[in-house]
């Protein structure tokens, strides 16, 4: 009996690579021989608007076509969304939360909410800073995927790096892969 589908929801703003992030995550899973499905919260959002994307990972064919309402993991690319959008809808306390911030959870005002999660399921990573450092642009998506690999174990860092390089050939891909690796190791080191 195969295990149940793993569902990820990524929140961010238009221009932050939210959709690419879901796509790269699905590619990483595909590279490991898994079935995966990535899709955006379809819309006509422009730069800066709140956006979502979804990714499902499974060992068998994924037939379900509905948006991810009850994610197993939530990736939050922009903390400014925390109090504007119902980010945590459908998230149960067994899930994972990965938040892009250079600060700590306490500063975000969600301490009470995250306290219910198992240890290590809620992590922050300074993805924007890592992106600036490795890519030269404040695009946190790749770094967060590295972090996701670290907290969830659903995909390996290797696969994430390969997926990133596939999506962004050349120096951009390399920089993003490095940012992902840096995030991965930063979280690993926090454990």
């Amino acid at each position, binding site marked *: 009996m195969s295990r149940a589908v793993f569902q990820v929801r990524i929140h961010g703003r238009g221009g932050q690579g939210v959709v690419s992030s879901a796509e790269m995550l*699905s*590619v990483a899973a595909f590279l490991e021989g898994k079935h995966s499905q990535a899709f955006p919260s379809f819309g006509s959002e422009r730069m800066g608007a709140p956006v979502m994307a979804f990714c499902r990972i499974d060992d068998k064919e994924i037939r379900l076509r*509905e948006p991810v309402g009850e994610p197993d993991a939530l990736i939050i690319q922009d903390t400014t969304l925390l109090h504007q959008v119902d980010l945590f809808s459908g998230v149960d306390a067994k899930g994972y939360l990965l938040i892009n911030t250079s600060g700590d959870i306490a500063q975000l005002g969600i301490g009470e909410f995250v306290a219910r999660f198992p240890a290590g399921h809620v992590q922050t990573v300074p993805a924007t800073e890592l992106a600036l450092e490795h890519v030269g642009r404040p695009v946190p998506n790749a770094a967060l995927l590295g972090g996701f690999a670290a907290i969830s174990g659903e995909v390996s860092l290797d696969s994430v790096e390969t997926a990133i390089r596939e999506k962004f050939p050349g120096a951009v891909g390399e920089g993003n892969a490095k940012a992902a690796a840096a995030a991965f190791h930063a979280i690993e080191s926090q454990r």
Partner: protein
Amino acid sequence: MLKQIEGSQAVAEAVAMCRPEVIAAYPITPQTHIVEGLAAMVREGKVGTCQYINVESEFAALSAAIGASAAGARTYTATSSQGLLFMAEAVYNASGLGLPIVMTIGNRAIGAPINIWNDHSDSMSMANSGWLQLFAETNQEAVDLHIQAFRLAEQLSVPVMVCVDGFILTHAYERVDIPDPDQVDRFLPGFEPVQVLDPDDPISMGAMVGPEAFMEVRYLAHHKQMQALEAIPALAADFAESFGRESGGLIAPYRTEGAETVVLALGSVNGTLKDAVDEMRADGQSVGAIKIVSFRPFPLAQLREALAGAKRVVVVEKDLALGLGGIVASNVRMALRGLATPVYTVIAGLGGRSITKRSLTRVIAAATTDTLEDPHFLDLDWQAVDSELARWKERRRAGPIAENLLREMGLVGHRPHGTEGPTS
């Protein structure tokens, strides 16, 4: 070759492998990524001598396709929604002229209110235009149907729409087995038109036909659709043999053996539906599903046979014939004419409304106990509707429905009453 790939890109790659000679394209969400992908491939020289025409409208897109096809070129275009309506005149014209154009429809709702999200209103509006309409459940099937569509179109000299759910499929990254170009070449021979604009053998195409022959012309077009009822399963079988996987056909039953309740749907919702069937079967309920791949021609006999053992039929459809109800359900009722089998209509997913497994399960369950109203509007916000209806009753005049509803739902600024402008 397996790829984790966006649906649009997969379709673009499949189309490219079919070696179209002319592609006419106009952007419209959610179809756009397909023609963008093809534009790149044509520019890179990956599609032979294919000519890519950036037209100024969908009307021009299909018109250019008509010209190209009449000149003997394998021709492709794609559109969605308003775009399909804008080319409506040409849609009928292409089929009337018997031109085997293949067109992808990235299915999307039709405004007003403008809405870029998925439903099947666009394809349904052209269901009786003389084109064949094949609906894909997955991106794999979308790829496979395009390959079959060119052969089918050219075999019968009739245009084919391959309907792919906008966003849900077109924008979804998933695993697709992209066929080998040689494999496609073997399956799809070169285009040999039955008529072509040729200076060495000129003809006049597109005559004006009066009452003395118009009925016959229409009958013959209908006859082609009837021929397609045989050609489509044969093609699917041939495809399965060539590519080693099932795709296409007229209909595809899922766990219908012994099912008392059979749920019918077009397109991608069949995936969710299958999950729901599995769940309900696991729960001991006698439920099955049938995917209708070919909406035109509509497989009346095949459905009647497949539904012979069903006690009831539920049609989940992403369209609404205003003033009537379900379009697919009406067609299904025709398949079951003379039988007492109840057919429930579930109008779902209009304008991109999510169709969740939970909701599907709920309405199917209601159907199994024959407690489902017909038609049923899946996950309709009755509070919003009732509130607007109450307002109508109060003011005896309908306003802009969409705006009022959004206000009701608190999604746009709510102005105090009395500031909307003059009322009766």
